[in-house]
């Protein structure tokens, strides 16, 4: 999904920033050096990741996707989000078709020390939130200091 954000205060300028972003995207201009597994900006679904004390949370922005059409797999420190979104609307002519339609797949690298058995996924208002708990032995522990 290619939702863009802008710093411009005046809404009119949003269109100029958007044009610039779309040109960048057209030529896929990024950093001269990229990770071989990196994906271009605007890849569907957009993803936010967050490290928490007890878990890691990944939010995938999947509006209009039925949860049954999404497949989540954790393997070797990577999470795969795979599925299909149909955006067919019916008869008639399209004036705009900006929304992503079709098959999608994204792989997210996970940090070490997660317990894939303790993963939960929840779909709400078009966002799929995946929470994966840290393994017990990786959680921070307090060490009591004894006095002799």
């Amino acid at each position, binding site marked *: 999904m290619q939702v863009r954000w802008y710093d411009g205060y005046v809404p009119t300028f949003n269109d100029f920033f958007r044009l610039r972003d779309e040109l960048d995207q057209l030529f896929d201009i990024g950093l001269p050096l990229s990770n071989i597994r990196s994906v271009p900006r605007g890849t569907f679904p957009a993803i936010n*990741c967050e490290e928490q004390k007890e878990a890691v949370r990944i939010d995938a922005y999947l509006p209009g996707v039925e949860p049954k059409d999404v497949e989540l797999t954790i393997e070797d420190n990577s999470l795969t989000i795979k599925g299909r979104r149909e*955006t067919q609307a019916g008869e008639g002519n*399209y004036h705009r078709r900006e929304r992503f339609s079709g098959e999608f797949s994204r792989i997210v690298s996970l940090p070490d020390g997660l317990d894939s058995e303790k993963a939960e996924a929840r779909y709400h*208002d078009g966002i799929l939130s995946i929470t994966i708990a840290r393994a017990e032995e990786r959680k921070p522990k307090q060490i009591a200091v004894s006095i002799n």
Partner: protein
Amino acid sequence: MAEKNTQSIARKDDAELASRIKDTLVPHVDICEDKDSVTLYADLPGVDKEGLDVHIDKDTLQLYGRRAAAGTDAKTGDSYTEMPDRDYYRAFTIGEEVDREHIAANLNNGVLKVVLPKSERVKPKKIVIKCG
């Protein structure tokens, strides 16, 4: 007099809107037209019914979606963000042909659908040709 009042209301709304739409995301839309209506679909993930505001002011259709707080209190370490925590805003001008009384909007799983029906007088009509 009525017009003046409307204008002052519009100015008040504009000031409020200007502050609301500062730093917003532009949602992606599909717009499809058939002989009866124009239908708009917008991706608004994270917006619930309470946070959605669809309104028509004269010839402008405005979509505004407030993102529900993502509840990131538990955040402690690094994060990676492709969707910043901002609201959505997008507006379109619409023509005279849209029947403003019968516009329907529906939000489901983060997708907004707005149906803008055309008024009867602008729908295509078949002209019967009489012979003789």
